């Protein structure tokens, strides 16, 4: 089985729930060990954030479903790390 260890997603989300709430919700998704959300652009009602997730076994479907539950949409998958070890892209 292929293991996805790290994902970087470009996400458009409503201002509420806040990034804090969303990070909390994502951190309890099965397989997720660490979550980082960086705000990139804030609008009046929505914001674009970069969501970085790390874990031993990330399930993109589960992650996407969790995001959708809170009204967030994945615009693009910007970076994926899979396999047994991390690559040093320098």
């Amino acid at each position: 089985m292929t293991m996805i260890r790290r994902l970087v997603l470009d996400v458009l989300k409503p201002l509420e729930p806040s990034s804090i709430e969303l990070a909390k919700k994502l951190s309890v998704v099965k397989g997720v060990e660490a979550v980082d959300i960086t705000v990139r652009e804030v609008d009046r009602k929505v914001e674009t954030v970069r969501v970085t997730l790390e874990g031993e076994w990330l399930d993109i479907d589960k992650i996407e479903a969790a995001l959708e539950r809170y009204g967030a949409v994945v615009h693009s998958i910007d970076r994926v790390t899979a396999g047994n070890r991390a690559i040093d892209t320098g």
Partner: protein
Amino acid sequence: MFGKAREAVASRIHTFRFYDKITKMSRIARRYFVLNAFDGALTIFGVVLGSWFAGVSHPEVVIAVGMSTSIAIGISGLWGAFLTETAERKKEMKELERLLMVRLDKTEIMAAARWAIYVTALIDALAPVVAALVILAPFYAAEPGLIDMHEAYLAALSLSFAVFFMLGVFLGKISRENIVVGGAKMLLAGISAALIVWMVSGGAF
């Protein structure tokens, strides 16, 4: 057995707190509560004062008129808040859907919005009834003869002023102003109502 029930309640509370954070419901509900409690209290105060000036000597009459009036205000609050909140939240959801380019029907955001509508409407409905029950309490005591009608009137009027003052204190606390000043502002409304009723009734007392 109780452990499971407690867990279920705790998880519900957790969800509601989350919904409240998303919708900012408590801020809006607080406003509705004060507005409609004040509406109810002032109306019932008018009913009590009017009954007193008219010389109503049966507590059941004051209770019947007071309670039916407050229930009518409550229902008006329920409908008003429900329809207003539904319209506002629907508009908000539609705008979000347009910006996100997705349907939000099955999201927690929609569930939170629905929850906020129901709770706000309920608070708006109950506020005047609670205020009325407090003010009319002496008449419930007068009905079985625990106190006489004169005492009931005095107690009900004092309770009205206490309710006005408490609502003012509550507002003062929210705005972090002097709570006594906040209370006094609300009290002033009661006093002016009393004066106007007194003048309208021909200055009978």
